[in-house]
């Protein structure tokens, strides 16, 4: 507003001069407004730290069998007990975070990229291309998620990379629908028309005018997607289609030996369960809160289900 004098409150000014303080202030405000979201954020940060520094945090390696320590109950030496091969469960849970975090973020990144490419191009180009692509997306979406990923993994073979590929192709279909919708509505706006009238090319219109306006949608989709992907990864590992042993994934720890020994050593099944649930809970809470904050239309818990 030209001419009007803006009075900047002192703390704000201070915050502005120190970017680090400003970030802290933002985090504080987020925590005050969305306490559950803040709890989610703490869990997510904890998870990322665990994954990044697994080799420093874990007292043992994920594949170290401690002699004479088979199926020991939780103790000071083994916080979460040991499993049937004498491996420390706490260490395996810590290393397991690596799989969840890697698969979660890599999948969401890849899925978002794919979904944006499909969604934006489908909306922007329209016509026969749009119709064809949307029918393929329809067909893809009419499969149950787990069934299609299982079939894909059976095709690709187990392994981290294939898991990420399969899950991201799956996630991309649904997300591309939403991004297509957002793009369609953006393209109706006068500034896109203006840009066109001024002679902007397709690339310029997409990159400078359309993409910045669908970014909020994309961010919301991906934070909410993270919880879903981690859940899917653990389900697949549980069924034996995840990362092959000896590398520990939480879902894998629960299947096979975790289940057959759980009556004698309940902690073998307990801790991976807690880890999965906490991680998914954390991402869901953070995603929900971020969605509320970023998208004013959805403020007040309008409640679109996460799945």
């Amino acid at each position: 507003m030209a001419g009007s004098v803006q009075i900047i409150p002192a703390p704000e000014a201070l915050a502005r001069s120190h970017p680090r303080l400003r970030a802290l202030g933002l985090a504080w405000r987020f925590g005050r407004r969305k306490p559950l979201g803040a709890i989610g954020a703490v869990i997510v940060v904890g998870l990322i730290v665990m994954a990044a520094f697994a080799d420093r945090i874990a007292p043992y390696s994920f594949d170290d069998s401690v002699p004479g320590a088979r199926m020991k109950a939780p103790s000071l030496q083994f916080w979460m007990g040991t499993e049937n091969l004498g491996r420390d469960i706490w260490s395996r849970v810590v290393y397991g975070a690596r799989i969840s975090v890697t698969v979660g973020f890599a999948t969401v990144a890849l899925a978002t990229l794919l979904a944006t490419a499909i969604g934006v191009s489908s909306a922007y180009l329209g016509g026969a291309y749009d119709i064809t692509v949307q029918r393929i997306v329809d067909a893809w979406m009419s499969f149950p998620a787990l069934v299609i990923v299982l079939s894909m993994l059976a095709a690709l073979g187990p392994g981290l990379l294939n898991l990420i590929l399969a899950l991201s192709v799956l996630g991309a279909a649904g997300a591309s629908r939403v991004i297509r919708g957002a793009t369609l509505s953006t393209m109706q706006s006068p500034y896109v028309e203006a840009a066109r009238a001024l002679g902007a090319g397709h690339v310029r219109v997409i990159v400078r005018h359309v993409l910045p306006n669908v970014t909020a949608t994309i961010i919301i989709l991906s934070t909410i997607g993270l919880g879903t992907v981690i859940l899917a990864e653990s389900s697949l590992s549980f069924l034996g289609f995840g990362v092959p042993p000896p590398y520990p994934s939480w879902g894998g720890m629960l299947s096979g030996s975790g289940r057959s020994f759980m009556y004698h050593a309940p902690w073998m099944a307990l801790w991976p369960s807690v880890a999965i649930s906490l991680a998914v809970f954390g991402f869901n809470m953070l995603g929900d809160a971020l969605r509320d904050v970023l998208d004013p239309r959805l403020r007040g818990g309008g409640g679109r289900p996460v799945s």
Partner: protein
Amino acid sequence: MQSYVLRRLLIALPSLLIASLIVFTLPRLIPGDVVQLMLEEKAYGKDLDDLRAKLGLDRPIPVQYVDWVARLARGDLGESLWTRQPVLGELARRMPVTLTLGFLAIVVAVVIGVPIGILSAVRQDGALDFFARSAAILGLSIPGFVQAIVVILLPAIWWGWTPRMGFTDLAHGPATYLLQFVLPAIILGIASAAAIMRLTRGMLLEVLRQDYVRTAWAKGLRERVVVLKHSLKNAIIPVVTVLGLQIAQIAGGSVIIESIFGLPGMGQFLLEAITQRDYPVIQGINLLIVVIIVATNLLVDLFYAMIDPRIRY
């Protein structure tokens, strides 16, 4: 109405055709050769080529696809490579198990989700609302297989009681038959119940702030009438849509729940078929699931017209 159904079926056709192509191609990409596996485990033929020819797998893949679709049009899903049983018969044998499980899970989802969602919205920010919302978040965060393990494990530790894992079929009486589905169905339905509860609450909250609801209150109508007759009807459409989507979720989840509780349904059949690379079985199951989901979507759309008189096809 009739012309609408016809039009919808026509639109579904290309989607189904693409789906059939995906269904057909995916299992064939599985590395490792079913023929090799079969020759090692069961001496079916003289050598690889002989067995391949016997199974019809020596023909080019497009030819196999056209042949499969042609037989499909005549209601023939082919036969299992391993057992030589017709896939359709095998599916018919296992369908009731999965359908019972799925149906009960949907009942659980609706019976828990809708009433609690309503109560939660009517008493917004009350104790029940807070409790229900927290429970819903937990229900969405704890995966089904974890819930299943907890449900099996805790009573075993505390009271030494474990649910029976064997399967008794319908011949042993409907009560015993249905009883074994109770636990799996509750676990399978919980996540959907949570999603439906959140949506019901959210939609109802929006409707309860509408002018005509205020009018209804002002007329002195009782709370039950205002909420159930005036508000719920206008809030329930998105809930029905999501319920339709949940059916796909439940179909996927049944794969895991069936394998944990030892229920011989289609999910278990699919897992078996995938490890054995039994192409016709994998194709048959996937196709059946796709058809079920496409049909549910159509039913959901038709159901709208029943709830909302403004919708006419």
